[in-house]
């Protein structure tokens, strides 16, 4: 979210480059059933407007060019009356959406590219403590993801796709992958057969993907008095999570004795249960459950600009080759002066910029990126 250090000059600059983008990119090809969606947006003063609707994409673009919001959202739900209050919208179903964020991977490289910005004075601090500059403000963190982050999140994204295609049987044509515009990926599943699922059913899917709630009994280990017995399930251990766990344990339908020894080596039923928990977390994907479970949520609109970075929520056709710093960097090339608040190196549109904390002339897309991240201010220098 744009924070306090964004002066009127910064906001005016961002509004101008955002407006130019929306004026030149009027298609929103991945926005379906526009008339059935609820829209919302965040203004530059952080105020969020919700419960609005548009008859077509043209109306939406006109609104974006006129008001130039910081962030634009639309509902995963389809409504009969999308602009009505939430209980009177006539819910008709919702796309199933998954969100993976680099932050949730807890990567060891995070500290190398995380900055802590003071909420009060905007100073960039080295640690998440009280601001060393003003001694008053608490800090919020911002990050410039590195190559390692991108490789790791793509690996998780691939795991998620395997769950969707191989286990849940969702056809590839119903899955669209988007870079979130900042530090994650969104997976939109618009399979009509799952649109009517309620939030309990979606929570069940979330737990499946995360690896939450797998029981020892599902792999054939049952609690018995103070110990345990082995009884492999009749429906087998060759599919779904059972298969993953069986493969991790190196067992098959005939390995009752081997399984017994594994459980004993883990310290009995409870010990084995703890081992299973670790195993399932490792094999699962750390999606944001609340995003998936919510059937009335508004999500960032594909093709819109993310106010946290100035990058767009871009469609990702080939996950492996996708480079967000190229393919999602869509703002203008025209040059402006910025005052970076810290030394940093970034690569956008295949150009690498090494910035000191002194006045620099950079393309608008770099300036927007840094201002949105709270790492620079626009300068009036000519």
């Amino acid at each position, binding site marked *: 979210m744009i924070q306090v250090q964004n002066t009127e000059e910064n906001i005016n600059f961002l509004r101008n480059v955002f407006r130019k983008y929306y004026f030149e990119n009027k298609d929103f090809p991945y926005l379906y059933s526009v008339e059935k969606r609820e829209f919302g947006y965040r203004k530059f003063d952080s105020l969020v407007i919700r419960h609005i609707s548009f008859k077509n994409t043209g109306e939406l673009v006109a609104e974006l060019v006129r008001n130039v919001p910081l962030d634009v959202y639309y509902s995963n739900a389809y409504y009969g009356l999308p602009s009505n*209050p*939430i*209980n009177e919208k006539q819910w008709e179903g919702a796309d199933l959406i998954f969100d993976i964020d680099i932050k949730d991977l807890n990567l060891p490289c995070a500290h190398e590219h995380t900055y802590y910005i003071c909420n009060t004075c905007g100073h960039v601090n080295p640690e998440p403590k009280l601001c060393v500059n003003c001694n008053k403000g608490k800090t919020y963190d911002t990050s410039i993801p590195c190559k390692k982050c991108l490789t790791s999140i793509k690996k998780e994204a691939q795991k998620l796709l395997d769950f969707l295609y*191989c*286990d*849940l*049987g*969702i056809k590839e044509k119903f899955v669209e992958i988007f870079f979130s515009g900042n530090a994650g990926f969104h997976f939109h599943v618009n399979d009509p*057969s*799952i649109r*009517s*699922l*309620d939030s*309990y*059913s979606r*929570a*069940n*899917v*979330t*737990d*499946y993907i*995360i*690896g*939450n*709630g*797998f*029981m020892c*009994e*599902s792999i054939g280990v049952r609690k018995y008095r103070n110990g345990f017995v082995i009884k492999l*399930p*009749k*429906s*087998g251990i*060759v*599919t*779904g*999570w*059972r298969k993953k766990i069986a493969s991790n344990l190196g067992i098959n339908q005939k390995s009752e004795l081997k399984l017994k020894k594994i459980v004993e080596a883990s310290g009995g039923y409870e010990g084995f249960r703890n081992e299973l928990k670790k195993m*399932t977390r490792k094999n699962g994907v750390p999606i944001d*459950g*609340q995003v998936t*479970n919510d059937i009335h949520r508004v999500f960032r609109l594909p093709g819109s600009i993310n106010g946290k970075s100035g990058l767009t929520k871009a469609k990702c056709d080939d996950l492996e080759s996708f480079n967000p710093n190229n393919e999602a960097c869509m703002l203008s090339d025209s040059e402006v002066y910025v005052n970076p608040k810290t030394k940093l190196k970034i690569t956008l549109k295949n150009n690498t910029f090494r910035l000191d904390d002194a006045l620099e002339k950079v393309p608008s897309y770099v300036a927007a990126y840094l201002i949105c991240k709270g790492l620079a201010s626009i300068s009036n220098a000519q």
Partner: protein
Amino acid sequence: MSIKLGSSELAKYPFLQEASEYIHETKFDFEEFNRPEMIHIINRAAEKLESELKGNVYSNLDEYEIEVMTFMVSLLLIKSIGLEEVSRKCSLFEAMRVEKFLTTDLSNERSIEKKRLLVQKIFLELFKINIDVDSTSSICKLSVPDYLQRASKMNEQEWKLINRSVKDGYVYLDTDETVRLIRNELSNLIYSRIKNMKIVEIPISIKSKADELRTKYSGRYVYRNQFKILEYPPCIKHAMEIINKGENLPHSARFMLATYMLAIGKTVEDVIDIFKNSPDYNEKITRYQVEHLAGKKGSHIKYSVPSCDRLRSEDLCFAVKECENLINPIQFGRRKII
């Protein structure tokens, strides 16, 4: 080749379309229940009903015609007794009776075609669930969305998708599991048939039997258990600690805390007071949200406390030993007031 269910099979499932057709075809008139030769049907229905009220599944099985009539009289008796608890209990035990027959039929049936037909009759015709029988393993399979729509309402962890055999968009279930999947719906189906029955005049023979049963059982169902909470569950304690420290509580935890407090009888004002220490406290917004959860605003539906399963998913569960076997935080530390 056309395969049909025989009358011996249909006798076990008197709620199917065929049963209504049978009554319709024989042009049976309700007044006929007043004839002396029908008394054994009424007595049989009463015997079944009493067995169910005692908590037993009535397992006697007679000929198709007798079963269809008994089922119809049972519904009339329950309707005529007019006690909600009797309707609920008998619906559940009738469902369990069907469950028992269906499990046996599906387990013993060797013909895949006949098994498919039975599954189709019960699951597709009544509940619109498309279940197929795998030709090689004879195990039942249904699509993930169909499964989720049923299983997500069940509290036992074994029904979570992660604990199921899942492949290529299908969930594979053995016979017992397939039948258990519809237990609640079957019970609800029978219950709704009782509720929706519109009878101008109940035959006197049935009415007098119903009066007799009402007198016998009404005393048992006049009270409702009342409980008081002796201790908050750990998830609620944790949320309260965060609030009391003046730290920010995630939306899902606020929802849990507010619904819990309302469920144990706190007033809207009490609940608003709890949130006063939140860093972003705004009385107007808090009041609106709490009143909404209490069913006093918006849809006028009182929101339930999220289940333990849900709280685990949202990382809001801090279970202790006493939480074992609980399915909802509301059950924690609850003692019956005698």
